């Protein structure tokens, strides 16, 4: 565990910075309807935090925090949740109807379904991009005499 990933300095910095990156991503998502930001950008920032951990600590550490299968499930859950919010509008007549109370301007719980949509999109983008990068990080192209072969390894031990 100790000799995997990058050097101790990188690991220490990543350990300190990671919660702040998550916090920034969450604030981008939650305040998307008040300040610049939203589900897409906040989700990408969240993925960036996990990619930092992936680069600094190696695959095993990150997959223990967020397993790929759970990330796949979260990806589908975010997409289905966004669709559910859209379908919820049929209760009041039309697709994507904003049926929740609008609240007061500059309050967190305002603007009806927009904040829920932002949360669902953020979940979807963050876990989906994480899955894509994780799957790409497990892929290996092996150059042999017959040509280039493809191999995928779930564990770091198989890489050597």
């Amino acid at each position, binding site marked *: 565990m100790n000799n995997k990933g990058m050097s101790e300095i990188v690991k220490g910095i990543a350990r300190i910075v990671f919660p702040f990156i998550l916090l920034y991503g969450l604030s981008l998502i939650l305040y*998307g*309807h*008040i*300040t*610049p*930001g*939203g*589900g897409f950008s906040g989700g990408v920032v969240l993925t960036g935090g996990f990619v930092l951990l992936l680069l600094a600590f190696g695959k095993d550490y990150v997959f223990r925090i967020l397993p790929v299968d759970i990330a*796949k499930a979260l*990806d*589908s859950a975010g*997409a289905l949740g*966004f*669709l559910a919010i*859209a379908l919820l509008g049929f209760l009041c007549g039309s*697709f*994507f109807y*904003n049926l929740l109370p*609008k*609240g*007061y*301007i*500059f*309050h967190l719980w*305002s*603007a*009806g*379904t*927009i904040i829920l*949509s*932002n949360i669902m*999109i953020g979940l*979807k*983008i963050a876990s*989906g*991009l994480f*899955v*894509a990068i994780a*799957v*790409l990080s*497990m*892929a290996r192209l092996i150059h042999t005499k017959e040509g280039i*072969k*493809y*191999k*995928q390894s*779930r564990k770091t031990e198989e890489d050597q």
Partner: protein
Amino acid sequence: MTLNLPLLVVLMLLMTGGCVISITARSLTSSVVSMGTAGLILSILFLLLGAPDIAIVQVFVEIVALIVLLSTIRRETRADMSSSGLYGVLTLLIFALFLFVFMFHGNEIVRPFGQPVITMGAKYLASPALLNAPNAVTATVLDFRGYDTLGEATIIFTAIAGVIVLLRIKGRKDE
């Protein structure tokens, strides 16, 4: 805006035909070319239905996809794609003819400056007052044009599913 319904129906039938041919065609090259035809007709449909921005995006995406797919087919299968010089010259001449016609009569097709086809922008910009959401961009993207955002989410979902399928372990034959 008046819609020419028979023209739309004919274009839609042509597009469906292109899609069916691209699925059923024996040769990869003709399948890609008929997919490009379907995309071109789709962009014309967007233009006729009053969505010029999406039509432009569609044309660009279609051209890039066509180039990528054709170059991939050429690399992987060594298909013969050499054409006689006459075809190239003819295509260039037809394209130049269209370009010149558009350049000389374009001001009759395109609306004058300041009078756009779509006048929804003012309604979008009134969103902070309607929804109590100060960020008008998010209000537009997630409320008024939520259907577009659903499409974007679907695109990302499909792309990630494609990555997972292409880089899978289980069920690969070549190992």
